[in-house]
């Protein structure tokens, strides 16, 4: 575990080197009178999974949606692969907390929907979608409708849809919070395999400390409103070990404890 304290955070947050996928520069967000984010400077290393963690209302989802281009920042800018973000773009794909699946469309059409919007032909997009449906473990469910699936399976559809558009950066907004506990664990394990396999940049928002430590290469902890970077932690956990071994690993448990000690003061 590598702990970068709050004071040194701003220096370390801006990592040296060219393998930076997403750069956040001086981002502030005001909702009318309420200051949601203040002066966020952050780099997200390419090919890594970075988690935004913090107490509820700290603006972590706001920051993710600003990166997605879904809501504008009040000031500051976002650069993805060096290009300034002005709105949603094909190099970023979003996975929603409530899945955001079209209930009138089959799993196949939902997964292929990003490609459909790009104007890709039916056969081509379906063959791509089929590949990712298999990758998230939903083969055989192609012609099912979302309401015929469990919460965990629905989010797998959401994930497959994000993979299918072949974006460089995947933005996941509390993807497991509406999934039950047992499914969530299995899903986290599968997600790590996919992170390994897909070589994409993942930005992950969660309120679960265990989830953050288990999944992340790097954890950015935001303070309570107005959201600022409080701490950056790199768990440095040996991912070659089995999931069960990781969950019992001393380094894992220490990191969870460390983060909890830091966050405790924000809890009422």
């Amino acid at each position: 575990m590598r702990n970068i304290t709050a004071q040194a955070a701003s220096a370390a947050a801006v990592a040296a080197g060219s393998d930076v996928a997403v750069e956040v520069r001086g981002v502030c967000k005001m909702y009318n009178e309420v200051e949601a984010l203040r002066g966020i400077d952050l780099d997200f290393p390419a090919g890594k999974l970075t988690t935004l963690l913090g107490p509820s209302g700290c603006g972590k989802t706001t920051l993710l949606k600003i990166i997605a281009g879904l809501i504008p920042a009040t000031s500051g800018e976002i650069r993805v692969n060096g290009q300034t973000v002005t709105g949603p773009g094909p190099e970023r794909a979003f996975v929603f907390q409530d899945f955001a699946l079209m209930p009138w469309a089959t799993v196949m059409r939902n997964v292929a929907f990003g490609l459909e919007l790009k104007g890709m032909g039916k056969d081509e997009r379906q063959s791509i979608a089929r590949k990712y449906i298999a990758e998230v473990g939903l083969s055989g469910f192609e012609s099912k409708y979302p309401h015929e699936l469990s919460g965990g399976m629905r989010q797998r559809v959401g994930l497959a849809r994000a993979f299918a558009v072949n974006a460089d950066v995947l933005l996941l907004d509390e993807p497991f919070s509406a999934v039950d506990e047992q499914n969530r664990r299995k899903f986290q394990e599968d997600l790590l395999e996919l992170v390994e396999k897909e070589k994409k940049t993942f930005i992950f928002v969660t309120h679960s400390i265990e989830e953050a430590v288990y999944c992340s290469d790097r954890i950015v902890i935001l303070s309570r409103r107005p959201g600022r970077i409080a701490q950056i932690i790199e768990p440095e956990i040996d991912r070659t070990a089995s999931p069960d071994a990781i969950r019992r690993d001393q380094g894992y448990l220490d990191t969870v404890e460390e983060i909890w000690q830091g966050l405790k003061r924000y809890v009422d």
Partner: protein
Amino acid sequence: MTLFGFRVPMMASLLVWCVIWEIVGRSGAMFLIPPLSDVIVAAVALVQTATWQSAAITTLNSFLLGMFFAIVVGIAIGVLMGRSTTADSLLGIWVNIFVSAPLSALVPVLMILFGMGETTVVVTVFLFAVWIIVLDTRAGIQGVPPSLVEMGRSYGASPWTLYGKIIFFAALPEILAGIRLGVVRGVKGVVIGQLLVAIIGYGELFELYSRNFDMENFWALTIILFAAAMGLSALIESIEKRVDYYAGVR
């Protein structure tokens, strides 16, 4: 429903009322109510007359035309009100007034504006049906989950695609409910319009039979009309049911 341990079929209650009607009719207690069997005989004869057929075509024509405009305009205004708070506060008060107002009172005014012909009837159908379609469409649009809209935007949907592929379908259950209620009101509109104009279509026949106390034909006409209205409503309901399988899981 079960009665004495037997399952009673759905339409059984209707049969009970038919029998009661027949008995009352045969007793001759009220000359306004002829026996049901006579009414049915009259209905069979009626639908074969050229008078009825041309009246039915005129009526259906006005109804379909009025409903077409009501659906197109209703959905358009409903979408506008659902998406824009300015349009909502500007139009909301009028829609709410008209949806509950006794529109029959307006038909004489419409007659002055549009003359004693089919146009007035079409406008009456439109005015009867459009408001509930506006209100239900608006409710449907407002109920579209924000994340579905964000999903569309984040995967690069243009505003038109967003409406055509996501928002419209997400609001479809409510829109269909609005159209079904609009159809029921539209049937009222077409009859009231024609009755007040009194010289065309079904209204003319109603006027003719009731004035001459030709109750067999009067009731035959009523039953055909009710059956048509219920049939239409049931048709839309069956479409609604097919769409409803997803309405519950949004």
